[in-house]
């Protein structure tokens, strides 16, 4: 197990190194950060002077080497806009994004399992057909459209829920500000979390349904029927448990993808998380922040994949993640 984790750590470092190199090499294409830092009537001469001071005129490899040297010491650069260390800025925004992901995951788990299982067991039922139809719709509608629709319906027309922002937050464990523990915060997270869930939920419903249908066709299920076991026991214990294996694998990857979707959701809802911050950073050509964000997200992907692999090993004893050979 330890060897596995160490190997994963090594992989994570490689991933982050590659990401940092790639994001560094595209930074010239993003635009000129100086344009966002100074007014329009500032002379080219002054801008050139500032560029020199900031080391933006150095050759690519010199800049990258300097970046790596600082990164080893935990310094991913200083954001031009926030004027604080990029990593500090991102960690400050992380709680808001994680709140959102937790809330969306809650919706996904709440609805995908019962709906998916029901649609597998009773594929011809009207509810299954409607659910499948809606899931296609859900996958096809872009998340920002869902978000704007929800805002207009629930915030503008009905006036039930707030239209933007995060609301009141409560401090948790001394550094974690969460909006999941206040009434106002929950009101604020309702629409964004549903928007975010709206892309992933249909996928889960369909996945659970098809996996479950496949399992229901398996020999051991037929045997269980023949044995005369109770319906509920066959569905829940024998079929559903085996359905979960692929769902966990794909689910882990989807969790990472959800982080990507937070960029859109957070932007529409003005949610002060790191996805919104990232899009703003791109508009402002805040390169240190962009690079640091990509590295952090890369790390999140590696970590979720590792956790998924570990869970998979626990759920399915046939899989040995440590790669050790089982002696017969």
């Amino acid at each position, binding site marked *: 197990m330890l060897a596995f984790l160490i190997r994963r750590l090594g992989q994570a470092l490689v991933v982050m190194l590659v990401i940092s190199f790639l994001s560094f090499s595209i930074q010239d294409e993003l*635009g000129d950060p100086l344009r966002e830092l100074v007014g329009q*009537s500032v002379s*080219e001469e*002054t801008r050139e002077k500032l560029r020199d001071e900031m080391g933006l005129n150095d050759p690519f490899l010199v800049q990258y080497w300097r970046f790596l040297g600082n990164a080893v010491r935990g310094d991913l650069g200083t954001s031009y*806009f*926030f004027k604080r260390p990029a990593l500090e800025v991102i960690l400050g925004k992380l709680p808001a994004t994680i709140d959102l992901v937790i809330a969306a995951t809650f919706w996904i788990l709440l609805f995908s399992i019962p709906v998916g299982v029901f649609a597998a067991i009773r594929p011809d039922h009207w509810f299954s057909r409607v659910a499948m139809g809606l899931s296609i719709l859900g996958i096809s509608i872009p998340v920002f459209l869902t978000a704007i629709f929800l805002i207009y319906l629930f*915030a503008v027309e009905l006036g039930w829920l707030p*239209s933007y922002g995060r609301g009141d937050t409560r401090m948790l464990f001394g550094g974690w500000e969460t909006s999941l523990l206040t009434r106002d915060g929950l009101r604020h997270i309702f629409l964004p979390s549903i928007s975010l869930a709206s892309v992933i939920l249909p996928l889960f419903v369909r996945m659970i349904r098809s996996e479950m249908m496949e399992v229901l066709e398996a020999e051991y299920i037929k045997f269980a029927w023949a044995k005369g076991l109770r319906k509920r026991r066959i569905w829940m214990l024998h079929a559903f448990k085996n359905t979960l294996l692929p769902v966990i694998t794909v689910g882990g990857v989807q969790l990472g993808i959800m982080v990507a979707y937070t960029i859109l959701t957070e932007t529409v*809802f*003005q949610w002060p998380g790191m996805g919104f911050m990232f899009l703003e950073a791109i508009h402002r050509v805040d390169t240190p922040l962009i690079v640091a964000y990509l590295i952090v997200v890369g790390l999140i992907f590696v970590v979720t994949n590792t956790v998924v692999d570990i869970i998979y090993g626990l759920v399915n004893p046939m899989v040995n993640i440590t790669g050790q050979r089982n002696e017969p």
Partner: protein
Amino acid sequence: MKKSLTGFAVLAGFLAVAWPLHAKTLNLAYDADPVSLDIHEQLSGGTLQLSHMVCDPLIRWNQELGFDPRVASSWERLDETTVRFHLRQGVKFHSGREMTAEDVKFTFDRLKASEDFKGIFVNFSDAVVVDDHTVDLVTINPYPLVEHTATYIFPLDREFFSGNDERGRDKAEIVKHGDSFASTNISCTGPYTVSSREQGVKVVFDRFADYWDTDSPGNVNQIIFTPIKEGPTRVAALLSGDIDFAAPIPPADLNRIDSSEKVDLVTMSGTRIITFQLNQKRKPELADARVRLAIVHAINNAGIVEKIMKNFGTAAAQQSPKGYLGYNASLQPRFDLEKARALMAEAGHADGFSVTMMAPNNRYVNDAKIAEAVAGMLAKINIQVDLTTMPKAQYWPKFDERAADIMMIGWHSDTEDSANFTEFLAMTPDEETGYGQYNSGNYSNSEVDRLVLDSAKETDPAMRAVMLQRVEQILHDEAAFVPLHWQDRAWAARKGVHIDQVVNVMNFPYLGDLVMD
């Protein structure tokens, strides 16, 4: 029963009077928040909006483009190069200190040292302290725009910014990139103090108890400012009542806001001119004035304003908007396809030619759509346009390279004066002096150059008007550039928030004077 009703009415009346004095909170949303609390760090709309909330200038623009006294109660011209400002007595900084002429001098010197602001003060040699409440602004040559420039002087608290902070940094230092004392701390004389700030998320302003302007009708005690970047979100927040005052309003939402019973819309003809520049160096065909005139005649800019801008703009035939000294009333948009074709034929280009065009797609209102429309209009006189649009972050480096034959640029005059347009957009490019820095067309006319330079030394407004209107006439006759329109400005607020009294064409709402019911 009747008595108790009267009592209730009295109580209600009392509450109506007393309540406003205690809790009036304005939820405000602009598209961006200021990058720094240092008002001399970046010359931008956001900085000036902040300046007018936290500070007060010597004098400020009013809605009629005249000047109102602020911390300077009066001013007079002493001679060709000196204007004397008399400061108000008893103006308090947020630190509690009383403002004096020394603070004005400190601020003036700091502005002259600021990379972003020194351009505005280039014609000034000194601020001379005469006594505690009198200061003279001295210019190098006779200079007509002393008042215009004085609107940029928001006296800062000299003592607050003297010495070093606990990290050993000079408190007065202006740092463009990175952290400085002044970028997170400010003491000024304005109606509000910054009580908390989470950059990019929220800024809370509280009314300054010792604000000098006791005549101000403003009754807002607290402003909670949230930058909301996305137009639709900002509008939704306003319509749902989460926000009391929002700006800017995207043209697509103007109708809905205007017809809403919950909110009021205020629009104003703007001062930012949107143009296309025709590069004579890259494309020799464009050096022929007849071709440039043909292009101007082929572009239906009134149609663009109507169809694309949804009438959220004013079709232009010159740079200076109405109300500016150089505005030349005789110049009108001149869309005439027949004439355009005739001019092309006369120049020997009846069969046309092809050009490259670039425009940003997130800088000006509907910029990319306007560029597409213009490309379509030019096709009618056989000019084939290869159009590229891109985000502003990538566009500006391209603009600096002069990367296309036709490039879009919008300009707002920092001095609210006509000469500024020509200095940056149409004077002969000169790296030494910085004139023509944004003249990607390489248009050059020595008479225009001379008139603009002379106007900078002419202190008689009537004479300046003649000069600057002549400049507009020449640029118009030679089709130095393609004028499209001035973008309108729009603000919207919940009913009962009287923003119409405090907004202005410069787009720094004077929130200190805002009245809420």
